[in-house]
């Protein structure tokens, strides 16, 4: 089949952001009637590529060809007019608008000479598309009342409402249940039969082998290889994708498991999670796995005193603590490294050392005056230990790469000498080198007697690093698995409510 001409291809495409080369001379071919899987670790440049292909980013170099002709996609509109449509990883839709409007926003149907919006027509068409993909959703519901899975179906319906030629599915199954994934496969097959070129991004090898015809592998923003899926196997893909062995990425070291440091009993939140109990021991890495939106982050935020209206008890070292604010949590010895590094983790405009000393300004500066030397010394201890790459610690955090920003956030919290450290998606969106460093550091932490909670949506990461995994589904802790019982199938099935 590879003798047919590609419908859409990229050659030598590069794109950089301050501090990061997201795409470096990459190439890709998508063929009509075929599914091409784009494979790569987080930070390999997949999302950047999707945005380049849909006119959201403009590449600095390289060529995009559509049906053999060079095209430039200056706006999302331009991409859409060629029939290039993407279902993004985070569903980007409008909460306050109806399902119909979400499907037709930007390309409304009109009627009559005066181009009035044809709501009846749009509703009918929306109902038809939703029926075709077997998603029983009322088109007039406002989006905010839909579950995450349903929102994905709306996003797919939206993509189908165009005359799609190239369909990009960016981790479409991350938030779907087993049943919904089956339906998605059916949709993909229909699109194939209709002659669409499909790009499928997924971390799950079973899905890739089930649905893809071809593969292309990226690593650290570079193209590393492509081919037919039936001429390779999982091990081959992993080697291409990681470029190093599993042990190097997940350096799990055995730490001495000690006494219980944290005991959570029947923690409930009015809307986000319900009746969560668990304990955490010294020297342990406890993984929290689940689909996007399972309530993991909300649970961690509750432990850190961010959420209100939480019921249940939290004990630190047998002693009951009342955590009503992050200040209480820090005092009790719990720190939280959030997923949204830029929004919640660092003050981008401040220097590295100021960021690190921030949570304990009152301890360092007892006189009430700021003591910059003491702050710098404190920061030096932790920033050096974490090997933050910067000319000196006066560099603005905003100028660092994602991985180094992550190290600053971790350093900031370590400096408070906590007992429990919560890492929420600690390696999301950082390159593989930094990732391995964060993992190695995690192992060091537990060896020093800290207890770590790690929230992660990456199965290899939780399986590689955790001693125990608690699996959440729709706000409930549905299963708990110890390291010797780890199995990918069991964990994934529990997470999707199976």
């Amino acid at each position, binding site marked *: 089949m590879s003798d047919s001409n590609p419908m859409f291809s990229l050659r030598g495409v590069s794109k950089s952001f301050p501090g990061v080369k997201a795409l470096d001379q990459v190439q890709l071919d998508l063929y009509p009637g075929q599914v091409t899987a784009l494979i790569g670790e987080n930070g390999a440049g997949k999302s950047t590529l999707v945005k380049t292909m*849909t006119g*959201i980013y403009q590449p600095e170099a390289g060529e995009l060809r559509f049906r053999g002709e060079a095209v430039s996609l200056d*706006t*999302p*509109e331009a991409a*859409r007019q060629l029939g290039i449509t993407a279902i*993004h990883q985070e569903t*980007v*839709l*409008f*909460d*306050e*608008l109806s399902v119909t*409007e979400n499907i037709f*926003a*930007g*390309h*409304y149907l*009109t009627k009559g000479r005066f*181009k*009035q*919006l044809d709501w009846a027509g749009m509703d009918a068409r929306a109902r038809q598309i939703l029926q075709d993909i077997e998603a029983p959703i009322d088109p007039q*519901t*406002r989006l*905010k*009342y839909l*579950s995450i899975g349903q929102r994905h179906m709306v996003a797919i319906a939206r993509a189908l409402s165009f005359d799609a030629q190239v369909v990009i599915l960016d981790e479409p199954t991350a938030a779907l249940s087993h049943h919904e994934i089956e339906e998605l496969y059916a949709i993909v097959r229909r699109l194939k039969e209709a002659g669409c070129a499909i790009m499928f991004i997924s971390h799950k090898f079973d899905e890739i082998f089930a649905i893809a015809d071809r593969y292309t592998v990226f690593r650290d923003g570079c193209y590393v290889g492509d081919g037919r899926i039936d001429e390779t196997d999982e091990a081959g893909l992993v080697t291409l994708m990681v470029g190093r062995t599993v042990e190097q990425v997940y350096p799990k070291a055995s730490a001495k498991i000690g006494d219980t440091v944290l005991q959570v009993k029947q923690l409930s*939140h*009015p*809307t*986000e*999670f*319900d009746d969560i109990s668990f304990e955490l021991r010294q020297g342990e890495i406890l993984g929290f796995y689940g689909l996007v*939106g399972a*309530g993991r982050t909300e649970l961690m935020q509750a432990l850190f005193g961010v959420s209100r209206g939480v019921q249940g008890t939290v004990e630190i070292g047998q002693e009951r603590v009342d955590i009503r604010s992050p200040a209480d949590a820090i005092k009790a010895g719990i720190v939280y490294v959030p997923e949204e590094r830029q929004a919640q983790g660092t003050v981008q405009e401040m220097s590295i050392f100021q960021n690190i000393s921030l949570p304990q300004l009152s301890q360092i500066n007892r006189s009430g005056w700021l003591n910059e030397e003491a702050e710098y010394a404190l920061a030096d201890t932790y920033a050096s230990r974490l090997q933050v790459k910067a000319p000196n610690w006066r560099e603005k955090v905003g100028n660092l790469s994602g991985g180094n920003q992550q190290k600053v956030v971790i350093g900031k919290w370590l400096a408070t000498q906590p007992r429990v450290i919560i890492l929420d998606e600690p390696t999301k969106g950082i390159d593989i080198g930094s990732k391995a460093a964060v993992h190695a550091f995690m192992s060091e932490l537990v060896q020093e007697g800290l207890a770590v909670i790690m929230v992660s949506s990456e199965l290899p990461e939780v399986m590689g690093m955790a001693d125990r995994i608690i699996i959440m589904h*729709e*706000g409930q802790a549905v299963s708990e698995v110890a390291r010797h019982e780890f199995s990918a199938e069991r964990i994934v099935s529990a997470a999707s409510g199976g």
Partner: protein
Amino acid sequence: MKTMLQNREILLAVLILVMILLVGVITPDFLLPSNLLAVYNDTSILIILALGQMLVILTRCIDLSVAANLALTGMVVAMLNSAYPALPVPLLMGVGALLGLLLGVVNGALVWKLGIPAIVVTLGTMSIYRGLVFLLSDGAWVNAHEMSASFVSIPRSTVLGLPVLAWVSVLVIVIMVHFTRQRRLGREIYAAGNNPTAAFYTGIQVGRLQFVAFSISGLLAGLCGYLWVSRYAVAYVDVAAGFELQVIAACVIGGVSIMGGIGTVQGCVLGALFLGVINNALPVLGVSPFWQMAISGAVIVIAVIANSRAERKVGRIILKKAALHAG
């Protein structure tokens, strides 16, 4: 749940009725149809301006310059009338609207092309426009006797029982309902304000829509320039000083979210009427103007709290429970 926002509007309507009835108990004359009509007529300008402001707020911006725009266009129109009394009034109205549009275009262009936050842009243009009124008039007033008879009388003349001023506001309401429900641009304004990122991904240009919203707000302010000056039969530098706050308050009370993307024409009109009734009823009851301001202020704070509660996100456990009840 689905009709929460509509319920809110019904609630507001009921509240307005209750207020009217309460005032009526003390002063029965307040309930006379002619008086209620006068209250509506008196609120017309606020309604028109609030509808323009709503579009701006929907796009996550704010237009602080509406009252200054009104004062400047009002002064220009009044000076034209006193210098050339022969110019027909509809032409003057057109001139006012066009000038207002131009002033709105300036706001919109600065926000769109230079990416300056709307609050900064319109804080600046508010002072500039107000300053221009002074430069133009040299601080002098244009009084009733300098205006032509038709200039002053047209908004007051009644057609089918309603003054022209009230008819203008009804017309603007009808156009805005159509615009926000049936026009592509109107719907895109909601999308842009509700989720600018998603709007961008969808191919909607958020900046362009902000420009459109500011332009419409300016146009309506320009139209109100003539209406205001002729209604009060005087033009001077401080016309409608501080009125932009009433306009924004009307939007907020009417359920327009200051975070953008949420708000309806009917809600906005009710918000304006609510303030209109308060403004008209309190003097009748002999309440001091200082209390009037405090009451309006309290209502705004309450409305903002009510809005933020209504907009709170729906949690998954609630969803699940709702699904259980439904199933």
